[in-house]
Structures are given as C-alpha cells and as structure tokens.
C-alpha cells in the first residue's frame, strides 16, 4: 500500500489541490476544520479547486479522489455556509465520497477514528463504506458527529498512473 504524507509545512495550498486531483484512492486530513474547509494549508476551501483549475482548466489531467476523510471539526456543518465543504467536494467532482463532522469534535474521538481507519486499511478494506464500518469506534460521540456524503461504494484503491502523478506533486520537505 502506497501512502503520501503531505503535511502543511511541506506542501502549499495549490500543491494540495493538485495532489487531490491525482486520482488517488483515499485522502485523510487530520487537523482543524470549519464549515468552509480545512484550516491547514493556509485554508483550503471548495472554491480553491475552481480557482487553481484543478477541475476546470485541465479536466483530462485530473481525476477525482476515491474518498476524502476530514477527521476534524465541522467540515460537514452547514452553519453560515449553506453548503458545507464536505458536501461541496463530491458535488464538484473532486471526490466520490466525503466524510466530515457536523459539529465540533473531541481529539480523543478523532484519534479513535484515525486508529480505526488505519487498521481497516491495513486489513484491506476496498470501499469507503467498508472502511468506515470497520473503523467505527465504540465511542457514541464519535459516531454521532460524523456523516458520509457521496457514494459509500467508492473504491479506495489507486492505480499506477495516479501514483506516478502523486509522486510528481511538488513538496518542500
């Protein structure tokens, strides 16, 4: 299983938009979140995918990610945004499925999800729905906070072409 670690100190916002457009199977964001988007990468919002042309200028060079999991607060909340970041991503064709919280979350619950997701990946989960069912923690508040938007049968595998693109994403590590 190939994995890329793109932390906020090693990649720009534009680089992250490119990375998400590589067609990889799964993206896992851990950090701070708001209804408008991720706080990391100097603030990544849905409109940045249009602004940099990831889904617009060169559509043939971009493929949606299988699923994007935002393990952080409120990216699926509609408070003061109308449409949340987690809802916008599948609607824009950035990803087939999006997982996010509708409220503020506890870091302990987020750790539970992160550990469960990594274990489920290691066990070979092949769709985002299967992944989340396997990863689901026992904490009631962790389950209550999160929603899956989009296709639960979205495959989370990456092909070689996507991996090649991902290796070419510019980073500053």
């Amino acid at each position, binding site marked *: 299983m190939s994995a890329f670690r793109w932390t906020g100190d090693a990649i720009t916002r534009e680089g992250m938009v490119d990375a998400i457009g590589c067609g990889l199977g799964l993206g896992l964001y851990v950090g701070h979140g708001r209804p408008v988007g991720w706080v990391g990468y100097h603030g990544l919002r849905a409109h940045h995918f249009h602004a940099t042309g990831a889904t617009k200028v060169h559509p043939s060079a971009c493929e949606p990610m299988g699923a994007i999991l935002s393990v952080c607060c409120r990216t699926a909340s509609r408070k003061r945004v109308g449409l949340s970041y987690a809802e916008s991503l599948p609607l824009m064709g950035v990803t087939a499925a999006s997982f996010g919280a509708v409220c503020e979350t506890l870091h302990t619950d987020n750790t539970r999800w992160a*550990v469960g997701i990594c274990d489920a990946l290691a066990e070979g989960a092949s769709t985002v729905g*299967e992944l989340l*069912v396997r990863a689901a923690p026992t904490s009631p508040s962790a389950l209550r906070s999160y929603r899956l938007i989009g296709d639960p049968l979205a495959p989370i595998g990456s092909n070689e072409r996507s991996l090649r693109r991902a290796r070419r994403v510019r980073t500053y590590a």
Partner: protein
Amino acid sequence: MARKESPLTSITTAPADQADAELRAAIRREVQAIRREKLPLVWNDESAYQKDLGLDSLDLVEMVARLEQVTGLFVPDEDIARLTSITATAEYVRARRLGSTGPARTRDEPNP
C-alpha cells in the same frame, strides 16, 4: 459487512489466569505498537506509562483507541487517567468486561 468481532472475547470465557495473560499480552502489543523506540530496554507490566515508559498524553489517547479496537469496549475520556500501567489497564478491562464496575458517566450523557 459486519463489524469485526473482538479478538479478546476469551477474557470472559477462558480460565482466569489464561485470560489475564492474554489480556496483558494484547495490551503490551498495543503499547509497543504506539512508539517502540520510546520504550526503555527494561520494563514490566507495573511500569507507569508516562513516568517509566515516557508516553505522553497523545500516546495514551492512541493507546486507548487501540485498546477499544481490540477489546470492543468504550473507555470514556474520564477513565483514561485510571489507565496508568499495563496491570492497571488489564484490571480496568477485566472489571468492565465482568461488569463489576460501570464506566464513568460521559459528558454526553445527561445527569441522572
């Protein structure tokens, strides 16, 4: 697809000594999985996670998350401070499994 079964169901069905040994071994594995390079060369089940093993609060949260995955138990955040060593953790899990002590009330549950 059904959620996976807890691999530690034996702690309620196996003889007490065997169940305790399996439980301690499972907890030891999870502690080692968190940050093996942090651990001292010599340590035992009585070693304190933070003072003797050098685990920080984030490591403890990860350890609890792993413990929940392995045992199928929910450990309320208020109970994390009670898990100070492998022995204490094993006793906590055993007590919860046998139902001799209930979990602490979580912040999400209403006051009685």
